[in-house]
């Protein structure tokens, strides 16, 4: 039997807006993926540590506070340090287009802004996950 895609849905930083993260976590689970949700207030170190421990294929970062450039970068950098470059990192939140381009250059595979359907996210993960 094929191994299920393992996804870590994570809330970096102090942001408490967890509606999107929870909706996405549940949609991914309903789509047959194995989902681990970190809960709130995670430092980038905690997120990467959980990703290592749980051996995930995908990390979904959700942030609506505006601190995405700093915190997403930290996660991607730490992943590289731990040799986990093959983990697919995606992000979502209140993120202007200009910042989304910057995030992609840093190594975030895709940024899902407001209005994205959960199906688009599921499809993107299935197509791009490296297993």
């Amino acid at each position, binding site marked *: 039997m094929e191994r299920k895609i393992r996804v870590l849905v994570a809330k970096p*930083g*102090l942001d408490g807006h967890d509606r999107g993260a929870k909706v996405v976590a549940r949609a991914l689970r309903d789509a047959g993926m194995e989902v681990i949700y970190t809960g709130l207030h995670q430092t980038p170190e905690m997120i990467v540590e959980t990703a290592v421990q749980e051996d995930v294929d995908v990390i979904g970062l959700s942030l609506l506070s505006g601190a995405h450039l700093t915190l997403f970068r930290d996660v991607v950098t730490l992943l590289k340090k731990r040799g986990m470059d093959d983990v697919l990192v995606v992000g979502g939140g209140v993120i202007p287009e200009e910042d989304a381009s910057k995030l992609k250059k840093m190594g975030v595979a895709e940024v899902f802004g407001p209005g994205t359907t959960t199906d688009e996210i599921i499809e993107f993960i299935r197509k791009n996950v490296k297993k």
Partner: protein
Amino acid sequence: MFDEKELSGIKKAREEWEEKSYKEYLKKHPERKKRFTTLSGLDVKALYTPEDIAHLDYLKDIGFPGMEPFLRGIHATMHRGRIWTMRMFSGFGTAEETNKRYHYLLEHGETGLSVAFDYPTLYGYDTDHPFARGEFGKCGVAVSSLKDMEILFDGIPLDKITTSMTINGPAAVIWAMYIANAERQGIPKDKIGGTIQNDILKEYIAQKSFIFPPEPSLRLIIDTFEYGSKYVPKWNTISISGYHIREAGSTAVQELAFTLADGLTYVKAAMERGLKIDDFAPRLSFFFNSHNDFFEEIAKFRAARRIWAREMKNLGAKKPRSLWMRFHTQTAGCTLTAQQPENNIVRVTLQALAAVLGGTQSLHTNSMDEALALPSEKAVLIALRTQQIIAEESNVTNTVDPLGGSYYIEWLTDKMEEEVYKYFDRIEQLGGVIPAIEKGFFQREIAESAYRYQREVDEMKRVVVGVNKYQLDEPISIPILKVDEKGERIQIERLKKLRRERDNAKVEKALNALRKAAEGDENLMPYILDCVKAYATLGETCDVLREVFGEYKEPIIY
């Protein structure tokens, strides 16, 4: 509400209409949907008639504005007498930048201030704390000490303008800074007016910017009630908030039920402490969301007033003011779309109109660019102008509760009230609001509703113009506010200088006194005031309380 004979005549005529007109018409022209519902999922019929409100007693259930049950408004004249306060929630970057925005808004006709703090401030951390990384000034202004508060309100007369502050975990500390700053301006604390949000229950339920566990948090809140009723009588010491519950994904019914349940929990806690209900109840205020379902929102505001008046009376309140449900409204941020952002101006107009027709005391209108970033100056001006147009051009303010008496509105108001009491029963069965939070009840209810809503949008059962229908294939191009990165350095320098130059012995003494008081059961407000006046920082003051009270960790539910 109607006499039996009249009612039976109406019933007969309505049945005839259904058979001869409605059903006949349906044969050739079916309705667009099998089922019509409100956004909360309540079934809506094609037509409402006197039959649907026949069970209501006009004098008892509807009545007159300014009188029980306050369904039609808390004041006799409502917006004929005074327009609601136009209060735009704003804050970003440094205190200097936000102060400039406040002056800008006041110059353009804003009538009250509303402070948005950044995340570190909301959690009681100073800007130089490791957890503050990347968050400085991003979703609000950073206030780490009285010094920042002084800059934030520079040139703003605190005896003439009221200020609302969205702060919860560290509300007592931020309020103390505001009081201390007013005193520095020469304004005694009994002359200042405003609101601290100070509603920790909805933080556990929805907004999630909590610090301490429920019990010490409630203690701090009751401390502010008590202190306010004695020394700061014009201050609303809490704004019991449904806004964030709704933004987290709840329905209108859940927003209303959970908010009122929270409110009653505070009232009971204060009474258990020995406070007299009529001493503190007049300073309780509320904060609701205004979402897309126009009539449902209006019904929600009306029902809120009637339920609150009834419940407060049941708890023994005697003063009419104690029965008043006074509320601020903000249009629903979660309805804003990143796509075709100009459409948001129209959404906000409808939501704002619902709030006004629902009898709001104060209103924030969202800016069209807020699904992308904090609002630009231009966007916030349009949002303010939206309120001014409703207030001064539309004439909806000419009469009190203009939708009162509408068969649909009265039925829906009553229906929402009925649904609210069903939730009250469920919360009661769980042992009250705090046990229900600990069991994850509210969080689960909200997550369910949020997921259902998203599925409906994804499956095209719910239209979002510009997002799942009428899309445009062109990039989004509106100017976006950028928070100046230099601000963080300025702020950290200011903090370092403050810690160097203040009387550190005095700071330590004040913090130690606070620690000792926190370990006992005295009212902490005077101790907190001493700390902030000695220029102890927000982080230092909250750290003392963290040591004594511990920190809250939430159950994970999705």
